[in-house]
């Protein structure tokens, strides 16, 4: 079977404390740009981006959620039915790492059963002020079966790599996808394709 034109569509949600760089990661991935002062997200933003693997195309429908506490109760609305999640923390903040662990637990408890979770330690460009050690996060990720990468939305280090790793790990059998909410036609915003 020729898989070259096969497009798989997945719902991905970003979670994490306020100001850890969720929107910056998404905008780096989708639009290829970075703002030094990224406004805080209100509610949630919906974007789409496609990743080409060797023989398949994976289209991510991305929910970039707001990190503020007042939006916490709305989070299930976004991660319900998501096949993938990126839980983001700021490597300069232990609190944000603690918060990330809580999000992982919530996803494991209430997310889709086969959800692919990636843990992203963002702001790697500011490693001089690091408060969360790579080894510590790495170990936590391994113990919990998470993908793990340290990223920098500012320098774009590991941003595409992170999404590609997720794309690789997602099952490419659309008919058996759990909690599929993918009956919608392609997202309306112009999407670009990252060839990797």
């Amino acid at each position, binding site marked *: 079977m020729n898989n070259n034109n096969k497009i798989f569509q997945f719902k991905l949600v970003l979670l994490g404390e*306020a100001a850890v760089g969720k*929107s910056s990661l998404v*905008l780096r991935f989708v*639009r290829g740009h970075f703002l030094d*002062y*990224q*406004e*805080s*997200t*209100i*509610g*949630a*933003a*919906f*974007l789409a981006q496609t990743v080409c693997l060797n023989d398949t195309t994976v289209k991510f429908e991305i929910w*970039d959620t707001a990190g*503020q*506490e*007042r*939006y916490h109760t*709305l989070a299930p*609305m976004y991660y319900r039915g998501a096949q993938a999640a990126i839980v983001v923390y700021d490597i300069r903040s232990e609190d944000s790492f603690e918060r990330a662990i809580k999000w992982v637990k919530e996803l494991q408890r209430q997310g889709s059963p086969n959800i692919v979770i990636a843990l992203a330690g963002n702001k790697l460009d500011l490693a001089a002020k690091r408060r969360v050690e790579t080894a510590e996060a790495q170990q936590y990720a391994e113990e919990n079966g998470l993908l793990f990468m340290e990223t920098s939305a500012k320098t774009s280090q590991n941003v595409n790599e992170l999404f590609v790793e997720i794309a690789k790990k997602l099952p490419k059998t659309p008919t058996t996808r759990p909690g599929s*909410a993918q009956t*919608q*036609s392609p*997202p*309306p*915003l112009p999407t670009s394709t990252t060839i990797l």
Partner: protein
Amino acid sequence: MMNDSNNSDDNLSEELNSKLNIPSASYIEDISQLLSNIENGGVLGGVNNRPVRKHANQDTTSPEWFKHKKHFFIFSQSGKPIYSRYGDEVALNTFMASLSAMSSFVESQNDTLRYLVAGDFQFVFLHRPPLVLVCITKTKEPNSIIATQLEYAHSLIVSVLTQTTIKMCIEAKYDLRDLLGGTDKFIDSIIHTVDSDLSILLNSVQCLKLNSNLRNSLTNILSNHKSDQILFSILLSGNKLISLVKQKKSFQLKPQDVHVLMNSVSSTSSFKESESWIPICLPNFNDASYLHLYICYIYPDRDICILLFSAQADAFYQLSETKKAILKDIEETEGLADELKKAVQNHDYSINQTEVPHLLHFIYKCRPTQFSTYPIYSPPYSSKPEKKRLFRLYQHIVNRVNSSPQKFHKYFYHTSQHETVIVAIVGHHELYATFSPLEKKSTVFESFTLLLQWIKDNEQNLFLN
């Protein structure tokens, strides 16, 4: 000449008074202690942990803090600081506690503190339990107008959290600021807007001037995509309304809600990057719960944005489809998209276009629909201070003619050193027209009649019908 403001002018407080059956405004006589506190500066040092906000590191120890003309403070009834326009609200803790004490003192006598004057400063209090909002200003605006501005700031907070959440949070002794995270900039922005927006001054919404055929086509397209999911469909550009369709005729969208909404949309540039789905409360529609708002800029370079409201939290995908269908219809109607983009670029008009002789400026409100229109400022209103001066004059005149809601002045004629403003308030409309103070009365009346005729002739393009 018009900067005195009598407390009885205030509709709001009058209403409040009649409800609570209390005598008119109370003053605190001795505020010298407070003022000496202000002059000597507080005891707390400033902590600047939000460098992105202007003046964030000021407090009562910084001389610059006292130079701001117009301060806004928001705190809980128990005096917990929530917001300060200038300076760090935590560092201003003691200052807000003094304001809170003043208000509690009057309350303990079963009365309500509304205004007080101290030297050049007016203090205006607005009680919206469990919150208290205070403006301290030397701008000499009418008290009732400032109270309305405080109302807007309050509505904004309700739009973010709902009144139910605010009450619960305060009752639980939880710090409201934790829930408001990131809201400061919206409050900053609405405070800035209410101080210059003529449509807010008239309690109205400004419509984008647009050829009526074009507008009808757009409105028809929005109507064709009505559904049970959608309460309101709105097309807007910046802070101007292009089209609005309601699911039910009985639904009311108050100007205040529209402005709070526009403020939230226009102060978030990241909405242009994606489709967004946000919970928002429209305080005059239902202050107890959220609606869900779908936001998408269909032509981001022209600031043209579509807003779809739903009561259902999971309606996003459906609304996204609706938007696609609406956009498709716009694109497929010949010339519509281009004409719309062109109109958005060129909709501003100047008084020259009215061809009314001697006219300097005007503001007009259609009373039944609460839509307004006005030209851009043109000379002599070119500089910022001149624009502001005219705005302040309008504030006083609006306050004066509406001073008694039962018996507003039908006609009002004001002449001062800089201008003559003639006002007509009839069942259908309010018109404020500005002329040079040197014009003869007969000329002014003639021009006024011509202007009314021009508005009537252009009504279809100036307003949504």
